[in-house]
């Protein structure tokens, strides 16, 4: 009898211990638990956005640093001891350069795996979401997956002009640790377009974009609807489709999607008031999709100022170009032929110490709402795409619209297609200074020259090598 009692006692204590054993540290959580609530899906998506904002990705190298070094926006080629000199010489086998490239690859795919995990789990959890959020989260995940693969393709694949059917990168849609085979450039583009198209459909349930933290339309307390600019929103999907179709060479479709975005009521051009008063250097009203990066200040100090913490950061780290006296910056902004009125020249270049620096990344606003933004797609690009996909006359009007907003005189009428294309290049160079878009422009056209580069451009320049580990463990 006593033994029986004891046994019962033992069994009672022991039961239910499986659940008890699920304890995890507060900062760690198992997937199953995370994806047990809508908030978990949101957290996972915020995690991806945070990852994209890392220094190895859009937070530094895919925007202000490495990519614009490759596009020769800075004078690294002329300074052999500059930290980015080897990168600017396209010496991709150099240890430091290789490390940057490997990191871009690794972290991009890490982000993609995170997205795939969201997509893998969301289908069976449809019931968890408030109305619309399932579509938005799934749409954002699919859209970002396409967006990131597209940028990987633009870095590691051949230009569609030179090798549309060459194997490029793997298009990863699983979470397994297994190896995904390499797809050709065209196949990747098709996958990107398929994902973006579906994303666009899903995201169309909520097209409102606001630049404030709280969307005026959002009275339900659904935080996912706040600050849609910092999410991969419907317009971001459309704008990316425009980018992708143009990259693929399908100008018809590119134009349609670009026009769709241009027609949206949510985006307006930046005014010089905002630049001067609010110190809004990234032109927030033009953001179709931007990342919020926690604390850009250290990067600003590192690259775009003479001093950091009182110690000289050294000219081998600074990212700038020769300003004034007809230097590279003056050439970019056509100072010799009336470019001096360009607000981008007037406001986005300032003296620090004795050096002129681009101020795009300066975090000067007294209101933190205007600081810490990493723009990934901005409105002018849609005009440039539309221009590139239109006949010269229409193209001129698209370009003139942007020029007007930037304080530049209109282009003369009657420019031919080549001249238009040259104007578009200039615009990319001016508009996206330190934003990492120019390199893709050259690559898309497989341009044999890169402005200010002493090295002729070719596949050796345009195609970054895959990391050794990627090739080694691919067998």
């Amino acid at each position, binding site marked *: 009898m006593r033994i029986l009692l*004891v046994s019962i006692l*033992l069994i009672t*204590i*022991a039961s239910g*211990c*499986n659940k*008890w*054993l*699920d*304890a*995890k*540290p*507060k*900062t*760690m*959580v*198992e*997937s*199953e638990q*995370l994806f047990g609530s809508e908030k978990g899906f949101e*957290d*996972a998506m*915020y*995690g991806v*956005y*945070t*990852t994209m904002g890392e220094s190895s990705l859009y937070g530094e190298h895919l925007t202000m640093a490495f990519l614009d070094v490759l596009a020769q926006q800075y004078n690294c080629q002329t300074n052999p001891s500059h930290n980015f000199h080897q990168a600017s010489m396209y010496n991709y086998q150099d240890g430091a350069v290789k490390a940057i490239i490997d990191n871009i690859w690794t972290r991009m*795919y*890490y982000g993609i*795996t*995170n997205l*795939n*995990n969201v997509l893998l789990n969301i289908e069976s959890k449809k019931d968890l979401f408030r109305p619309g959020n399932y579509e938005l989260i799934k749409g954002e995940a699919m859209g970002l997956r396409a967006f990131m693969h597209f940028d990987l393709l633009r870095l590691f694949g051949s230009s569609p002009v030179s090798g549309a059917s060459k194997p490029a*990168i*793997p298009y*990863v849609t699983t*979470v*397994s*640790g*297994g*190896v*995904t085979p390499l797809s050709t450039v065209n196949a990747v583009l098709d996958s990107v377009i398929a994902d973006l198209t579906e994303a666009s459909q899903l995201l169309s349930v909520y097209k409102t974009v606001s630049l404030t*933290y709280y969307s005026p339309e959002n009275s339900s307390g659904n*935080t996912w609807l706040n*600050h849609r600019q*910092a999410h991969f929103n419907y317009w971001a999907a459309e704008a990316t489709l425009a980018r992708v179709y143009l990259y693929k060479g399908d100008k018809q479709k590119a134009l349609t999607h670009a026009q769709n975005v241009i027609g949206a009521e949510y985006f307006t051009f930046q005014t010089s008031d905002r630049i001067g008063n609010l110190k809004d250097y990234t032109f927030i009203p033009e953001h179709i999709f931007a990342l*919020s990066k*926690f*604390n850009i*200040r*250290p990067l600003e100090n590192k690259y775009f100022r003479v001093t950091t*913490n*009182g*110690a000289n950061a050294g000219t081998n780290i600074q990212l700038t170009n020769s300003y004034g006296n007809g230097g590279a910056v003056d050439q970019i902004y056509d100072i010799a032929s009336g470019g001096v009125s360009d607000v981008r020249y007037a406001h986005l270049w300032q003296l620090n110490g004795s050096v002129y620096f681009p101020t795009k990344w300066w975090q000067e606003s007294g209101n933190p709402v205007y600081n810490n933004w990493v723009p990934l797609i901005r409105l002018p690009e849609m005009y440039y795409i539309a221009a590139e996909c239109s006949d010269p006359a229409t193209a001129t009007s698209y370009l003139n619209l942007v020029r007007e907003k930037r304080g530049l005189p209109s282009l003369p009428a009657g420019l031919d297609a080549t001249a238009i294309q040259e104007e578009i290049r200039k615009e990319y160079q001016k508009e996206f200074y330190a934003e990492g878009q120019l390199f893709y422009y050259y690559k898309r056209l497989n341009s044999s020259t890169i402005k200010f580069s002493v090295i002729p451009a070719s596949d050796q320049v345009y195609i970054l090598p895959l*990391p050794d*580990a*990627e090739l*080694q*463990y*691919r067998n």
Partner: protein
Amino acid sequence: MQNAALFLIKRHKYYAAKTSLPVRQVLLVMKLTVLLLTVVFMNVTAASFSQGVSFNGKKADIKSVFREIEKQTGYFFVYNEPVLQNTRPVSIKAENIPLLEFLNLLFKDQPVDFMIKSKTILLFRKDREGLNSENDETLLSELAVALPITGLVTDEKGNPMAGATVTIKNTKQAVVTGADGRFTINASPGDVLIITFVNYASQEVKVANNSDTIRISLKPIVAELEDAVVNGIYRRPTENYTGSAQTYTVEDLRKINNTNVLAALRSLDASMQMPSNIISGSDPNQLPQIQIRGANSIANADLTSQYGYVSNPPLFILDGFEVSLQKIYDLDMNRVSKVTILKDAAATSIYGSKAANGVLVIETVQPKRGRLQLDYNNNISLSMPDLTSYNLLNSEQKLQVELAAGIYNTLPSLGIHVQEYREELYNKRLAEAQRGVNTYWLSQPLQTAIGQKHSIFLGGGDEYMRYGADVSYNHAPGVMKGSKRENASGGINLLYRKSNLQFTNYLSVTHNKSVNSPYGSFSSYARMNPYWRPTDSVTGRINKILQPSVGDARWDYLTYNPMYNATLKTHNYTKYLNVTNNFQSDWNIQPDLKLSTRISISTQKVDGVVFLPADAVEFVNTPDSLFSTRGHFKQTTGVNTSYQGDVFLNYGRNFGLHTLFATGGYHIQQDRSYSNTITVQGFPNAEMDDILFGLQYPINEKPVGSESVLRLVSFFGNLSYAYDYRYLLDVSFRRDGSSLFGSNKHFAPFWSVGLGWNIHKEHFIQVSEKIDRLKLRVSVGSTGSQNFPSFASAQTYTYLTATRYLNHIGAAMYSLGNPDLRWQQTNKLNAGMDLDLFNNRIQTSFNYYVEKTNDLFTSINTTPSSGFSSFYSNLGTVQNKGIELYLTAFVLKNEAKRTYWNFYGNALHNKNTLLKISDALKDLNDKAVGEQTKTNNPITAPVLQYNEGQSVSTIYAVRSLGIDPSTGNEIFLTRSGEQTYRWSPLDEVPVGDYQPKLSGNAGTNFMYNGFSVNVSLRFELGGQSYNRTLSDRVENADPIYNVDARVLTDRWQKAGDHAKYKGLATIDGTTRTDITKASSRFVQDNNTMYCDAITLGYQFPKRITERLSMTRFQCYFYINNPFVVSSIKQERGIDYPFARNYSLSLQLSFK
């Protein structure tokens, strides 16, 4: 020994007597026999044997007649086999005739006669009637018989106990008590009976000359069971145990060290490996690295550490509960009663997933019944720095080296003023040296430290209630000024017994403060040039700057005085407060069945502070614009809490010759830890030494910390069976459920089976009487390792708390997860033998073991496009094979005169082999090699590398042919055997192994009339070591700082020199700045003997202690670490010097 001459009979079994006896023993036997016989004959005449016997048989074997009589009368026949020679079959028909008459009838025509004593019928031959024939051995052997003794075994209350075992000591004869608790056994006066019963303390009773019924009352075991193996969950008699375990009592430990349990154990057991830490020396705040037997998993931590392979700490169990290494390190040794090291599967598998690296079980002292008793232990110790391994240059020698290294030479292109400046600098230094400035920097931060320790234990109580209280204080300063470890602890132990219930509660509080020296690292003193003055010659104050920098040239470098910070108010300490409460209840449901419940709650609060004011030398370079960042205060706060609970049933019973023990139970545990660190900057005033006075937080920094929780649920069982104490079987099982495992597979099983054979108890084999114990045992089983990150099996997300997105904290994947992942299991095989000889004068034990971890837990590389560059999997095999040998020999053993002299020695040979490793581990090699080739601070020593067929502690270096006499450059051998001047990590091959081939201990204890002497030595033989002193302080010595004296004598200087080390300057006279990396030149055989302790003791005799109303008065004098003899000459104690300890200890017990 007289038993050896007796032939003994138990029922129908009989044994041939041993015939070869030494003469002296024979005489002794004879005297006894004569005495016995006298008694026998007296009894025969007095007794009347009227009991009736019936027998009807024709040509019956005489032995069958004996059996019949025994059956009918209860009398036994006692005889020696030769007595029955030539007996004839008998034909008798008898109907209920008296026994005596029957026997007369039976033996009438036989060559045998008889006599009767008590209930025994003694037989002897008729042709040997002359009882006075003195030297007739045959007769003696025939008659030297044991007599039946009867007895009664009861429990404490007088109830008879059935099934108790009564054994005659040093024989195989044993009987079991009947239902009435009575027994009958044939024993001679002087024999010692051992009465044993499961869960009761065994008793020994000496048989008196004419004893009547012996009454024995057994007491149940409460805490102490002598000669038992204790593993924290259950106790088993050593005799029945099949596992490999070594037990040491506090007395054993005390012979070596009175304060440090771990250091004492290291000197006692070779399988416990605790390498002397060459880096941190005798730093009292540095916890040791411990490993039992070999390494069962791979160190992922520090690839460049010399002892990086020692990364497999055992599990520590204190009074049944898991505790941290720190708890054992800070444990007051006077509270310890016994330490058991569990090694093989049979011993450890009851601890399942944490047992792969062995288990250290520590039992503490429990209060005893009786009057109030007061124990006081005192220890005063003197630590003196041991700098014998240092051999540095004096001022003049140093300047000689500087000249030889050419550091004052300049290139003509730099101009004459540079040359003049350097000459001036040299002359200034020379002038100082000639003025007699020759600072012995090594001694500057050091002191002779006097430590003290007091501990008081009060205990007593009665049958129902017992109590104990302990208080201890330990002040252990280190030999570096200002460093110390201070420990104060107290505890209250209460024990309450009522009928079959017992409750025990122990509450303890420990406060510890570990202070690090403000003088910083000892290594910075070893490199200070002797011609520098530490103090201002006029004011006598400590200089802040020893040498100002004028230019940025290499020979004119800014040097701070490492002593300067000690003049400021700085803090660098950690303290903790630990409160632990252990509660246990035992319920004796039945005499053989006990239910125990234990609960332990422990919480530890940790505080750490590092404070440096603005004036500290660290901030000299901080510009004035950032004055508010000068000085910092780092505060760490942490809390660790642990709950552990056990419920288990213990069963133990004898069924005739079968002995069965069983234990089954349930364990539950939760460990939670949390810590955070806050840094504040700007402390212009050293007196403002509180975090509140800081000026600001560091820009862009936030509080950092960690948080973890671990839960464990286990079911365990053990069954131990013995047949006649001869054949032993042990089966253990444990099922561990841990929050470390993925949610689908929280549980993992572990098991073991052990077999044993007590040959010395065997009946059919002739076992020499010289053998007291001969036991063979073998065990197999599986255990697990603790080092399993929780994210490895389950797909896990981590919150990105260091950053944010908009105003949200995102979560990102931390691990891919591998649902197929298994717990790392170590399969262990152990075969052993225990052999005790010559009345336990020689005790030996031998073990052979193979421990194989098949599914080594390692990471597997994959394509980064899968999102992760690696994931965890079970791949790889590591194996440890080894033998252990233990030997204790008593040269003198005289209990009456309290005289002993013994020698002990034990040795371990362990061979570690990596049988299979993963690609990721191979990649780790590349990473490690990369550490040697990077341009910034390359590692000059070998790095740990892993290769199949080698061990985890193999040393990899490039083979060297020595220094080329013509150039002073080193000649290397490439992997393919070609000579080259170029060093390349690709040419690194195995050139040695850190792990010794043989390690062990040896020592002796001598005790005479209260005086005792103990010497204990420890040795490591057959291993290799990379001599960092030769590589860093001779070969790569930086001539601008002070260096080893061998720089002056052993380095190449000019063409033709046959030197051991490369030139100070190149052949053209410029200072050499090239760095020599891992070269076989510095790999030396490491044969080292450490003298761990020389101990003198005296125990005051009883007449003195009685007068002082004391029960014990003992004092010890210890010399710890008096000397080291080594085949390697290198600096020991780099960051903190080693020390010799002298301590005096008093141990008093008052009634």
